[in-house]
């Protein structure tokens, strides 16, 4: 029931907002649907707390500790972003960057995007997961090109083709998985793509085919995670699309894609009896961290800067999943959560800052603290949080990952530490003059929504000091499921 609501609400919202069109109250309606989705997600989480794992809808849906917290997180950030986008998109409308007709597309696609992500998270069927992931790309392509500038069209095209090709590889990987499972579970069975069934027989699956399948799945879903060298769509799509979309792409879509990678890894590693998938995750993760932290320095656009920071943080989480083991997995799950909250709050403030300055170029954004103290402080605190300054949650997860790396992969620790230091200096040196310094901005016709920013940062702060027992229990159970040495 909760699950049905969770999926039905956003898709009804998409249809309704598409039909209603450029209604004056469309932004509020969008937020209301997001709120309803969050309530359904909360009810689902409560049910998981009471009854444990759930297998629903003829085994097509599976809720376990690994995806329940991501469902709640997705619904939560979906709501806060909808709240943020309400004044933000109104300002864009008044600045003439969008038309009412495009806002209709924007709201309908926003809800559709939420639906595809929730479907990808909750489904037990690896094939449906693929369908939902592709749906997530399709629903956001036209959002990236919402402003119709040459740059946004280029970003949209890159996003479509790169993710399209990537996702075609993932489909091939899924088919290989199905072929291998067909041998064990019976080829005609509907069950051969169900994750729970695959997980039960994973040690009997043919190792060479599964290794091949993992390569395809990792390339496919890894493109969407933004792992280097498959990342080139990510900064463009984040920088050229509307800011609320940057926030949900960075905060949610990357998580969902990483979730798909890790689900695949659990199956393949069980079949292979070797550490090959883990090594690949560690390699891609480390490469992403190092390259993204270096590329940060060359950015002049505020949203591109934080897009590269997203690549870096997804790299950290991927590396931690690669190390495996209860501690590293726990830290990676925590990192996914805090990164999602922090990064979306940063995009909220960065969006307002860019609106005030009238540009996304960082050298022209100055003196936010005198112009609007809340936006300035929001950006400063968000940046400090994402850079891993204690006592924010990112510090806790990065600290756990680093200390585990010292034991498990001592060679990687100096590389990670170095990259984190480079990223710290890079981001801090660019954010500091934007927040302090001489002002140049203007007043906005609608007051910005800053509640989401500080709500996110407060949760990140709390997670750095205290993790609620349910959440810790979920993390522990999921970490156990993901396994490792």
């Amino acid at each position: 029931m909760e699950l049905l609501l969770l999926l039905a609400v956003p898709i009804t919202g998409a249809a309704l907002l598409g039909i209603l069109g450029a209604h004056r109250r469309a932004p509020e309606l969008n937020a209301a649907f997001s709120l309803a989705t969050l309530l359904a997600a909360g009810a689902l989480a409560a049910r998981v707390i009471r009854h444990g794992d759930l297998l629903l809808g003829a085994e097509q849906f599976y809720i376990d500790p690994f995806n329940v917290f991501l469902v709640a997180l997705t619904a939560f950030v979906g709501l806060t972003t909808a709240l943020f986008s309400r004044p933000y998109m109104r300002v864009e409308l008044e600045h003439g960057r969008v038309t009412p007709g495009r806002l209709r597309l924007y709201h309908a696609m926003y809800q559709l995007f939420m639906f595809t992500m929730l479907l990808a998270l909750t489904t037990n069927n690896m094939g449906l997961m693929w369908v939902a992931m592709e749906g997530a790309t399709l629903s956001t392509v036209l959002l990236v090109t919402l402003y119709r500038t040459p740059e946004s069209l280029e970003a949209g095209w890159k996003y479509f083709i790169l993710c399209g090709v990537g996702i075609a590889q993932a489909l091939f990987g899924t088919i290989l998985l199905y072929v291998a499972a067909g041998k064990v579970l019976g080829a005609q069975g509907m069950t051969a793509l169900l994750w729970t069934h695959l997980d039960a027989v994973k040690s009997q699956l043919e190792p060479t085919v599964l290794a091949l399948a993992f390569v395809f799945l990792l390339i496919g879903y890894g493109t969407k995670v933004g792992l280097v060298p498959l990342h080139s769509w990510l900064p463009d799509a984040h920088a050229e699309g509307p800011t609320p979309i940057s926030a949900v792409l960075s905060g949610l879509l990357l998580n969902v894609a990483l979730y798909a990678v890790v689900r695949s890894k659990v199956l393949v590693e069980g079949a292979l009896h070797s550490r090959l998938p883990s090594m690949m995750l560690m390699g891609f993760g480390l490469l992403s961290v190092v390259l993204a932290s270096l590329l940060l320095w060359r950015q002049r656009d505020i949203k591109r800067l934080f897009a590269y920071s997203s690549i870096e943080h997804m790299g950290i989480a991927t590396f931690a999943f690669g190390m495996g083991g209860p501690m590293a997995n726990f830290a990676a799950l925590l990192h996914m959560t805090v990164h999602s909250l922090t990064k979306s709050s940063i995009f909220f403030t960065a969006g307002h800052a860019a609106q005030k300055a009238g540009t996304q170029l960082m050298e022209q954004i100055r003196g936010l603290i005198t112009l609007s103290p809340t936006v300035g402080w929001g950006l400063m605190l968000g940046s400090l949080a994402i850079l891993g300054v204690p006592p924010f949650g990112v510090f806790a997860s990065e600290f756990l990952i680093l200390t585990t790396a010292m034991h498990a992969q001592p060679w990687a620790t100096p590389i990670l530490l170095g990259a984190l230091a480079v990223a710290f200096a890079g981001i801090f040196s660019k954010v500091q003059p934007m927040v302090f310094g001489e002002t140049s901005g203007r007043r906005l016709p609608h007051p910005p929504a800053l509640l989401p920013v500080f709500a996110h940062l407060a949760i990140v702060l709390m997670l750095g000091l205290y993790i609620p027992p349910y959440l810790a229990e979920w993390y522990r159970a999921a970490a156990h499921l993901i396994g490792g040495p």
Partner: protein
Amino acid sequence: MTHLTLGQQLLDSCAALLLLLSFAMLSQRRVVTLVNLYAVQGAVLTAATLLLAWRTGEGHLYLSAALTLGLKVAFLPWLLHRLIRRLGVYWDTEPLLNVSGTMLVGLVIVVFAFALAQPITLLASTATRSAVGIAVSVVLLAFLMMITRRKAMSQVVGFLSMENGVFFGAMSASYGMPMVVELGVALDVLVGVLVLGVFFFQIRERFESLDLHHLEALKEHE
């Protein structure tokens, strides 16, 4: 050498035809012909699916064949032709690598694909040894086409051809995917092409051309 049944031989012929069509696409610069070749590829795929359905008596394969026929032979080519006429893009410019060079690379790719398909073939339930190798070849050749072409339209046909390859792989290795998934994939492909149609008009409205070199402003060092 084992003796092959008639059905087996026909299926192998279909596979060979698919590979041939992939090479034909790789060398073709006329966009209209490219779309026609894609439609023929869809038709061969339909024939192969029907053949497999008849041999195995699998009900859902008939459905899948009907889906392929409707979507990949009729609807998508019609839509693409319409787009071509509305947008007036008939020719692709000289590809980044000339035709003979592309063909040579294509040959190497086919050899590589067969090597890659070896372990899958051993596991495949339909016992058509060459089919899986050809499916992988079609995917990789389509990939090559996407890399070497400049026009958005050719890249899209490459992308759709890649999906054909994946689909043929699924069929030859395991009698297709479960129906839910197949329907979902078909839906995604359909929506994808529709989104692209909208997208083309946006690109065109902005640049008055569908040549992708306009879309090279976002460089790392800007």
